[in-house]
């Protein structure tokens, strides 16, 4: 259940930001991302400062615990940093690095706020309404639905393993984990077939 909460916990909190309609909220987040990405630097620093202030205020209203936001940010930041670090090897790399870091942190914050305060189903409806191809929306919907089923399945397998594991050891537990991951692939493939059958049975073509 722990992982469920990590993904879905704060969607059920009630705050002014949670109550905002999904369409406008989605648009606002997109605007933040567009501005953060497109504004020229160094002239645009005040703009980025303004965005940062707006996001912090929004975060305050959203009643999300700051520790949650920071943890999320830290979880996603390495991906960005990986790309930004390369800039350090260029002439004037430091300023490029700093601007990349600032821009991406703002984008991430906007997306974290959006996703943590909006029911996923409602986000899906919004992106479908603005014309994202149906097949893509279906894939996202299925991913979201079966993520939890898979987490439960992995949890059960891990528990079953550890109930029969008598000697703990790092190497051994890595070995067991790789087995679980392999099993998950096999089971998911089987499930995919059954889900497809169920979709066909209700008229999917």
């Amino acid at each position, binding site marked *: 259940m722990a992982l*469920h909460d990590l993904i879905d916990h704060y969607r059920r909190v009630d705050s002014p930001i949670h109550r905002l309609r999904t369409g406008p909220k989605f648009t606002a987040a997109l605007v933040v991302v567009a501005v953060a990405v497109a504004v020229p630097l160094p002239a645009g620093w005040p703009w980025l400062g303004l965005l940062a202030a707006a996001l912090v205020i929004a975060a305050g209203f959203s009643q999300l615990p700051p520790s949650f936001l920071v943890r999320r940010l830290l979880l996603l930041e390495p991906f960005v940093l990986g790309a930004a670090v390369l800039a350090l090897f260029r002439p004037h790399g430091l300023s490029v690095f700093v601007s990349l870091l600032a821009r991406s942190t703002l984008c991430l914050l906007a997306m974290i706020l959006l996703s943590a305060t909006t029911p*996923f*189903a409602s986000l*899906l409806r919004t992106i479908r309404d603005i014309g994202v191809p149906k097949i893509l929306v279906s894939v996202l*919907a*299925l991913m*979201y*639905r*079966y993520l*939890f*089923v898979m987490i439960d399945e992995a949890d059960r397998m891990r528990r079953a393993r550890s109930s029969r594991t008598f000697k703990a050891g790092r190497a051994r537990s890595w070995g067991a984990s790789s087995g679980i991951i392999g099993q998950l692939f096999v089971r998911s493939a089987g*499930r995919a077939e*059954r*889900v497809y*059958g*169920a*979709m*066909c*049975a*209700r*008229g*999917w*073509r």
Partner: protein
Amino acid sequence: MTPAIEVRNLRFSYHDQKTALDGVSFSVAEGECVALVGPNGAGKSTLLQHLNGLLPEKFGPDPAVAIFGRPVSVESLEETHRKVGFLFQDSDDQLFCPTVYEDVAFGPQQFGGDGREISRIVRESLAKVGLEGFADRIPHHLSAGEKQRVCLAGILACEPSILVLDEPTSDLDPRSKRGLVALLKSLPVTKVIASHDLELVVQLCPRTILLDGGRVVADGATMRLLADEELMLRHGLEKPHSLQHLHPHGGG
């Protein structure tokens, strides 16, 4: 009268060459409720999947299954899906949408229908299974019994004339099971139920088909078949408690 389901000499083997169905024949009249029993690996699920065209993947020239007189083939597949509602054993396989509403609406949407009509159907279907107010719930927050009832609502929303249920009680606690029995009794459609739960069979199905090794071993009145202790034991089943004092050939 045309039977609701007509199966004639159905043979099927999976890719691994193991024969799953070896010449199965039976027919089910409209409105009948028939149980399909047999040991693990008898071919029950395989047979059920033939009833609404999920199997075979490629249809031969001479279809062995007919629904209301119409052979199940590539051309009639959509009609078959519509007429035959299929309840899968694992609710998680069948509940594939992000919310309960969308899941129940899935069938009607596929078969075409306008928004207001669909939301009326969803509301009515959820009411039929006793889940009013569940429309916005997320499937992974539901209990096993609730998940299964949502699955049933999703099937009822397609307004099928035949219900095919694969082990409907395997995940349910006794209370949910009683609810399911009452619900199924209230639905006036043809039903085929595969189950190891012989008490359920006794409560719901006047007729039972016993399948073993891909063949129909016995086909007849539930009370007579299930009370035959020797027959039950020979095919990996057991006489249900409620029939313990009933002699197979009357008397009791």
